Structures are given as structure tokens and as C-alpha cells.
């Protein structure tokens, strides 16, 4: 499965590696090695874990990985919007993927980090438990999202990638950042404490 984002901006390995920066929490050694393995091919995916499950995001949609840093909360926004960070002078929103996927919150660890993803002009930080590796996932390895019945929301899932030892849930960034979700931010009908 080769997905080339519309803007097709090539990600160059050195760029990614040099933009990794740490703050407050030191970035795990692992995340650094991951960035060094980033290749040019579009079949590559950044693999990260959330509550023990591996997820993948097309590497061209990943701008950089940064350590956890001070996040300013934005009032009157849904809970999964953690707030905004200062990314070298730019204000970038940060979403807590655990909260977005309805998982219970977890203590921050040394490995918790923010994956800055981009879709066209939109940039968004995604908080994940741990970044593990970059994997080449070919079309043949990807299966359609299995149906789990009404109880499981598969809306953000593009497909499921299978490698020898694990199953990786491939995420659809455009759905995660989709308009419908964003609109709910502005509704403001957010319960008062």
C-alpha cells in the first residue's frame, strides 16, 4: 500500500533526525534510532504504541517526534484536545490519542512523546505512549479493517498491517483530524463543572 500525501513533500532522513528535540523529558534512545532508520519510501510507517497495541502512521505524514513538553490547555475544547505547544515559535495543537480512542489515561513515562503529524497545512501533535520503529509495510501485508460490530469504532482505521510477529493498526490521519471532529471543538456545549 503506497500512499503518497497530496503535497508529496519528500521527507529527508537527515531533516527528521535533526528535528528530533527533547525537552523536560529526555527522549528515549529508541525513538532516536527510529528516526535514523527513516527511509525515502512511502511504504514506510512510523510505529508507535498506545496501551500495548501497535499503531502505524505513514512516514510522510510525520514531521517530527519531540519529547513531552509543557502543554497549555485551551479552555472549552473537547477532552482529547490536550492543548497547544510552542514548536519553535509556532503554536501547534496537541491531541491525546488515548483520550481520542477512549482509552484510560496513563501516567507519563520517559517514553511518552509527541508525534507531530501534518496533513497539508494542518499540523497536529499526537501524544503516544512510545515510538518503537519504522517498518516497511507492503500492500500485500495490509488487510481491510475487520468488522468488530457496533461496539468498536473503526472510523480512524485505514487497515491492518500484518508482519511476522505483530499486527499493526494503520491510522487514517485525515479522519483523525477530520472536519467533523474539529467542528465539535467550536460547539462549546461542553459540560460545566
Amino acid at each position, binding site marked *: 500500500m503506497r500512499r503518497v500525501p497530496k503535497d508529496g513533500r519528500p521527507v529527508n532522513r537527515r531533516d527528521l533526525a535533526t528535528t528530533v528535540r527533547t525537552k523536560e523529558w529526555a527522549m528515549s534512545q529508541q525513538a532516536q534510532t527510529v528516526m535514523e532508520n527513516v527511509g525515502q519510501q512511502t511504504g514506510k510507517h512510523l510505529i508507535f504504541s498506545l496501551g500495548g497495541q501497535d499503531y502505524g502512521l505513514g512516514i510522510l505524514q510525520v514531521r517530527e517526534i519531540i519529547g513531552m513538553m509543557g502543554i497549555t490547555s485551551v*479552555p472549552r475544547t473537547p477532552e482529547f484536545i490536550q492543548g497547544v505547544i510552542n514548536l519553535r515559535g509556532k*503554536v501547534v495543537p496537541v491531541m491525546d490519542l488515548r483520550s481520542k480512542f477512549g482509552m484510560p489515561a496513563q501516567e507519563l513515562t520517559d517514553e511518552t512523546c509527541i508525534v507531530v503529524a501534518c496533513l497539508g497545512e*494542518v499540523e497536529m501533535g499526537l501524544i503516544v505512549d512510545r515510538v518503537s520503529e519504522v517498518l516497511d509495510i507492503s500492500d500485500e501485508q495490509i488487510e481491510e479493517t475487520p468488522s468488530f460490530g457496533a461496539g468498536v469504532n473503526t472510523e480512524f482505521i485505514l487497515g491492518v498491517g500484518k508482519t511476522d510477529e505483530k499486527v499493526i493498526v494503520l491510522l487514517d490521519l485525515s479522519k483523525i483530524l477530520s472536519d467533523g471532529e474539529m467542528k465539535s471543538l467550536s460547539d462549546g456545549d461542553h459540560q460545566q463543572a
Partner: protein
Amino acid sequence: MAKSETLYDGLEDFKARILAVDPADVSQVTVLRERLGTLTQSLEPSSQPAHVLDLAAQALQAVAQPACCDPSYLLAAVASAATAASQNVDEGANQDPSALEHAIEVLGRALQDQEADLSRDAQVPETTDAPVDASPGESQWAPELIAEFVAESCERLGEAEAALLALEANPDDVEQINTVLRAFHTIKGAAGFLGLDHIQKLSHLAENLLARARDGQVRLAGRHADLALRSGDCLKEMIEGLLADAGAGSSDVPGDMQELLGSLAEADEIGGDAQSDQIPAIPACPSDNVAQDTGPECPDSASSRARTNESTVRVGTRRLDDLIDMVGELVIAQSIIAQDLDISQVGGTRLSRSISRAGKIVRDLQQQTMGLRMVPLKGTFQKMTRLVRDLARKSGKPVQLVTAGEETEIDRKMVEALNDPLVHMIRNAVDHGIESAQQRARAGKDRTGTIHLRAYHSTGNVVIELQDDGCGLDRDRIVGKAVKRGLVDADNELSDAEAYSLIFHPGLSTADKLTEVSGRGVGMDVVKRNIDQLRGHVELNTARGQGTTFTLRLPLTMAIVEAMLVRVGRERYMLPTNSILRSFRPEPGSLFTVTGRGEMVRLRDQLLPVFRLHRLFDVAGALINPEESLMVVIEGRGRQCALMVDELLGQQQVVIKSLGDMFSAVRGISGGAILPDGQVGMILDTGGIIELSREISEAA
């Protein structure tokens, strides 16, 4: 003679460069072409040397084309043209025209060959790299070339318009006539080269008119001035249209162009003594929906450039903003180093001196980069001059606009946002303020009304004053209308300031009759709202029979705001200081709860609603007891309230950052800013907070 000497030196220098230029380097060729343009300007328009240089510029333009087959041939022709021109300048009166004529011939042939080559190429089916559109003609040119033509022509037309307006006061100023003539001439040449027939034709006729004016055959006043101005407008419309449908290949011809061509041709034939008949109303400005974000914008502001002879570089605003972001980060990083504990422990005066020196440089750098966004108000003022002229014609009242301080600089975003309010106020001044000539004569005033438009810097603000010497505001009528509409009580004693400020109230227009010019019931309230959005203030001064002065006080830039940092629980927010009236700690017993829900606080003899920020924004750990916390009295959209916060942390200037589309609809927040510790802080929108709190307390 000094002038011809510099011209000679310039031409010789140009010649040397032409011989050294690499034809494949488009930017270098473009630079040379611009130099040539500057040189041409110092020659007498329509003279033979100017004609040679014009042709040379066209040849250079052809060289810059990707499709150019034989650039060195063209360059050689240009070099010989420059030699001929410089000789001509050097020899002055006893010149030999044959060298020039020869150069013209050589250039003309070179250009013709080039065109023939091009058209032959166009017939060859295989297209190399140039994006050739399906339709021939205009779209054969690279978009950058068109964009450059548009930018340059707009600049020229802006200068021409200013000159034409100046000519109205002094129709015999040859210098100004030449400016206009040059503008039309340059556009004609470039349009001819680009194959834009309509533009070429119109500019040609306009040039003829101007040439006759220069020769004293017509006077550029009244009807002819109108014609020249309208030609400029029409050209501008067509030229800007090129950007809109770049690539589409279609060129829309404005409806009034045919008529304009007719009038121009007629003027050409009958000369200046023709009686002016009914002049059709100046066509309203057509849709200006030209996408201008990335393309070079019509640089009203840049028109000052040609005069000061400074070379400029066009930079996209996006890159500029990125630069400003980075410098902001640099300032933060520098202050973090300066305050680092490790460094202060190491001590050493040398280190601390170096750090503070670096700090100074960084702050200077920040000032400089912020200054990059500043543009002079000149372009805006020029538009207003034109507006007053047109309004005066329409309303039949003689009015003049006197401007001062047009070099005052202000953030370019502010310049755009200022346009509408100024247009509105000037319309009001002409329509309601200035009396008719008869009335003015009866009142013993000069028959011509005068509007002064001034700009200056004052205590970190830009002040714009608009003063008319008209009839002033009629207090009784304003109050009477306000009472009739139920805006104020009839038995209410209003101070003068309160009474006059009623005109800023929505839906109150004091015009007796609706005219085409203004008085549609939307009036000063729009101005007030626009100025509020720019975080500015409007003040008003009026004297019956003597006129009205509006004073707009605006921040230098929208990018920086003076804000008070407040703490609520663990969160910090910024309140723009211009919306803070005062802050106080409520005395025991000054708090009330109205009908069990709305909280009020008494401050002297004023009762203010209390809104708790921690409740509004759902912040944990904030002070609950109002008597321990602080009340900040804020104002927004015409209302006041007391906002309850834990603590004031101090006042500072912060650079405003957009939170992006995602948060654009979050109420109560107008933007973000980077705090000195590098964290993002939220800037509160006081108007939004007050509205939100009212809705919530009403719903509760």
C-alpha cells in the same frame, strides 16, 4: 550636465554588465532589465534614445524567456544599443542620429527574428519544458512573467494616479505629466511585447492624450483628467484580471473599455477646445476578487520605492512571518540563557558581559524584523485623495483633501483593515459634513470645503486624524433620534461627549435624505467596530458650524499586544490592557447575589456583574472566595464586567500567534502568545468572555 554625466556612467556600466552577463541566468537578466528601466526614466520620454532603450528592454525580456533560441544575438544587439545611447548622451547637442537609428534597426530585426522563432516553435508539436497552455496568445508566457508585469504595471499606475491627482491642482506641471506619460508608455511597451492587444491599445490612446497634454494641446483638467484617470482604472482592472485568469487564456474586457476607447479617440481628434458634454459617471470599482496571497500584490505602499531609488526585494508574507517567529524564539532562548542559574554561579564579568551584549543584538534584531512588516500609509492616503475627488464630483460640492504624514508607517495588515473605516468616514464627511458651496458662502466660509487627513506617531501609537471644516454634528438631532429609537431616555441628561458618541450606536444615521454616497443607515457603528477590532480607539470632537474631527488612535501593529498576565489556579491568561479599566480587591460586603444566581459587585456607586474565570474555563484549584481574589474590570463590545482572577502577574508586550483554524471558533479566546518562559499563553477576548458569561448565566 551632472544629470547627463550620471546617465552616461550608468549606460557605460550597463554595457559592461551586458557583455559579462550569462544569458542562462534569468535573475541576472531581469536585474539588468530593471536597471535599463531606471535609466530610461531619466531620459526624456518618447525621445529617440528612450525608444532605443525601450527596445533593448524588450530584447532583454525575450532573453529571459525559456523559449529564447539565440540569446547571445539579442544580447549583442542590446549592447550595441547601449553604446549608441551612451554616445548620444555624451555628445549632447551635436549628436549624430545615425548610430541610434542603426541600433533601432538592429534591435527591431533581432526581436522580429526572435518572434518568428517563437511562433515557429509554437507550431512544433513537441513541447519542451515551458508549460504551454492549450490556447495560444496570452498564456504562452510564464506565469512569473505575467505576475511581474502585473506588479510593475500596478505600481506605475499608482504613481500615475497620484500624478494625475496632483495635476488637477496644477494642470501645467510638466514633471507630473511626464510621470503619467512614462507609466502609460511602459505599459504599452510591455503589453505589446506580451501580446496583450487590448491593454496595448488603451495605453497607446492614453499615452497620446498625455502627449498632447505635454505639448500644451489639451489641458488635463475636468473632462480630460477624468478620461486619463478612467483609462488608468480600466488598465488596472484589465491588468489585475490577468492574474485572476492566468492560464485560462481568456482576457475579459471591461464593459466600459469600448466606450473609453471611443472617448479617447474622439479626444485625440477634436483636441482640447471641445466642449465637455455629459460625462458618464465614473464606473464603480469592479470586483476586486483577485487572488493575491502568493502573487505579488498591487503594491500601493511600494510606490514610494521608485522615488527613493532604493532597490527592494519582494518577499512573501508567509516567509516574513516565519522569520519573525524564529526571531521570537531566539529572544526567548537568549533570555533563558541569560537567566540560567549555572551561568550565574560560574560568575565572571566577561561571560555576563558577552551574554548581555548578545541580548542587545537579539533585541535589536527583533525590532528590525518587526519593522519589516511596516509600510507607509502613503498608498492609503492616495486612495482617499482619489475618493474625495470622485465624491466631490458626484455630490457637486467642491471639496479638497489635504494630507500630511503619509510617510507614517504602520503594520501592513493594519493598512488593509484601515481602508474601510477611512472610506466610510470620508464619505460621511463629504456627504454630511461639508455643506454645499452656497451654504458655505452664506456662512462666510471658503466655498471649497477642506478635509485634513493627518497621521503621526504618538506614545507608541499611530494617530490618524480626519478633520473637516463642515457644519459639525447637530447634538439636538442626534439626541432626538436616539430618543425616538429608544436608545436613551428623553429625560436623561447627557454630556456632550456622551451625546456625540451616540453616532457610534448601530442604526443611527443623521443624514436627512438617503443619497447614493452614504446614509444607508449603516454608519459610524461600523467604523467603531472596525477600529475596536484593530484594538484602537475613536475619539470625536465637533463644533457647530466649524467642523468635526475624528481621531483614531491605533496600535503600531496587530502583531504585538500589551497584555496583563493573570493567574487562575494553575493556568495563566493574558488580558489585553486596553480592555482593562481597573482592578480591585472587593471589600467585604460589596458582593451581592441577585435573585439567587447573578453575582454583582459594588465599586463606588457602580454595580458590575461578576464573572468567575475559573468557572467559565473550568479551571481547578482556583480561589473560590471572591473576597480573597481580585476583580479585573474589563470592557468589551460596549459592556463592562468584573472578571474574577487569582492574581495579576504583571504586564508585558507579547507577540500574538494565531491558534490556527482549529481553534478559531473557541469563544473567549482571541489568540495565543509565547510567554517569556517559552510556553504558550492564551489571550482572552474580553467581548467574547462577557457574551459567553451572560449566555451561561441566563441559561442557568
